[in-house]
């Protein structure tokens, strides 16, 4: 071992006689790497928007390819872009219908969230309050989540009729799960030291909850809200599929167009529903980023 010399020339000179405990040294010279220049606002937006669009374009290519493989008499199943435009999006009455029905659907979705978010937060706080309450509630929340909603819809219909209420409840059931789970995890992950700090000042439980636990848990709550938000539109549409009486939202339109063999309109409804879902998700993400940009890792702009 004493033959090792730190100079670059001598380092391998005795390699042959040395035991294999000394690995060969291959030095590399590393050049400085400049930080990437801060982007202008326009190119920042482009960086967010373009990559998903590229993937989406690839998906369209795939769609076209699959469509071209269909027998001609089955191609109505996958309308082309121009068919979609001429038979749906270009028609003012269809556009108007899409808009009003989208408003109905988003109304159901948001009302459902307005039910599930407070209940979810309340459940998390109750479970956080005492271990015994968590033990009591948590398994039941999981159990409720695993009840197949579709299977109990007939029951809901019988019990609650065909108004707004059953749809809202279906949305609430779909979106509830993510909220107490993520919030409880966040509440429980608060730094012990911070709690001690509050306790040293004789702070009450609710002071600790509002000034320490909630802010600390807010990023995980928002993760849950994002999941819930993206489920809300989907579940609103699913709920409509089973409640066709009266003037409904996009879900009803999708079913009706299928019954009438207006596949372009059905696709238009699907596309609008997807756009709605994505926008709700984006809004919640944006809100979260705004709140946590300053202090939380998840809110930091990516470099």
């Amino acid at each position: 071992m004493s033959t090792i010399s730190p100079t670059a020339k001598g380092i391998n000179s005795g390699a042959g006689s040395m035991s294999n405990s000394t690995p060969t040294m291959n030095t590399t010279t590393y050049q400085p790497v400049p930080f990437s220049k801060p982007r202008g606002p326009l190119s920042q937006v482009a960086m967010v928007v373009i990559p998903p669009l590229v993937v989406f374009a690839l998906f369209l290519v795939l769609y076209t390819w699959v469509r071209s493989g269909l027998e001609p008499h089955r191609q109505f199943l996958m309308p082309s872009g121009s068919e979609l435009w001429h038979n749906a999006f270009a028609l003012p009455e269809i556009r108007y219908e899409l808009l009003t029905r989208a408003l109905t659907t988003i109304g159901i979705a948001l009302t459902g969230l307005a039910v599930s978010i407070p209940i979810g937060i309340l459940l998390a706080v109750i479970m956080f309050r005492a271990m015994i309450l968590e033990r009591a509630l948590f398994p039941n929340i999981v159990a409720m989540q695993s009840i197949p909603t579709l299977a109990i819809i007939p029951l809901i219909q019988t019990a609650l009729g065909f108004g707004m209420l059953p749809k809202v409840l279906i949305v609430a059931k779909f979106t509830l799960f993510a909220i107490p789970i993520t919030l409880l995890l966040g509440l429980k992950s608060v730094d012990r030291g911070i709690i001690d700090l509050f306790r040293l000042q004789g702070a009450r439980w609710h002071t600790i909850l509002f000034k320490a636990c909630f802010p600390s848990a807010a990023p995980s709550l928002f993760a849950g809200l994002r999941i819930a938000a993206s489920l809300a539109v989907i579940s609103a549409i699913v709920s409509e599929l089973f409640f066709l009486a009266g003037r409904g939202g996009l879900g009803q339109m999708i079913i009706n167009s299928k019954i009438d063999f207006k596949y372009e309109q059905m696709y238009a409804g699907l596309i609008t529903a997807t756009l709605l879902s994505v926008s709700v998700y984006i809004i919640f993400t944006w809100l979260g980023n705004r709140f946590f940009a300053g202090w939380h890792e998840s809110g930091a702009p990516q470099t």
Partner: protein
Amino acid sequence: MTVSAGAPEPAAMEDTRPAALTFDKVSMRFPDGTQAIGEVSLTIRQGEFVSIVGPSGCGKSTLLKIASGLFPQTTGTVTVDRSHLGYTFQDATLLPWRKVLGNVELLMELRGYPKEERRRIALEQISLVGLDGFANHYPKRLSGGMRMRASLARSLSLNPTVFMFDEPFGALDEITRERLNDELLSLYMRKGFTGLFITHSISEAVYLSSKVIVMSRRPGTILNVYDIPFGFPRSPELRYDPVFTELCGEISVSLREATEGGA
């Protein structure tokens, strides 16, 4: 409780000062059966600065938590004024969602100080610990040393009469630590609080303190008490004083015995 600012009295006068913190035969056993503190009796007088060194896991933090009321002791009594208690933790424990100013205001907020007063005192403390210009920074953007300063400012805001430190500078580099030691000493001189300081650094303990306590292995008991004969203020050169070095050596031997010897 009033404390005259400035240098504490020399050791010979110590007994006349009223006690600021008294442990009387305090022991502590955790619910899981871990005996953390054996039996500790200790009196810290007003204006004293006492450091505790001891093997890792011997119950030093537990002792501070008992003194501050975070843990109850199992037997014995603690006598202390908890209404003006300062406490800094091993890590800065700043609230990451609050800027430095909001963090320094926190304890006053919890105590119900009016807003303007909170603001004024917080800015004073921020300036006192040398964080001018960082009041509006989130903790994420501060260095470890700066976070510790913010944490000190937060504790100072309540103008504590008894100030407890749980290894506050343990995670910092030597130079920063020595700088902060000097700043802590000047705060001590200026505010005249009673200090109880936990550290793993013997020289830090000797440098800061009027008394150094060596604790035994768990369950922690007081093994040795060293009076530090230097007055205040102290200057960094003190660290090269032969008496200082000798004291450090002596304490080091005692600490090694505490660590290796039978429990």
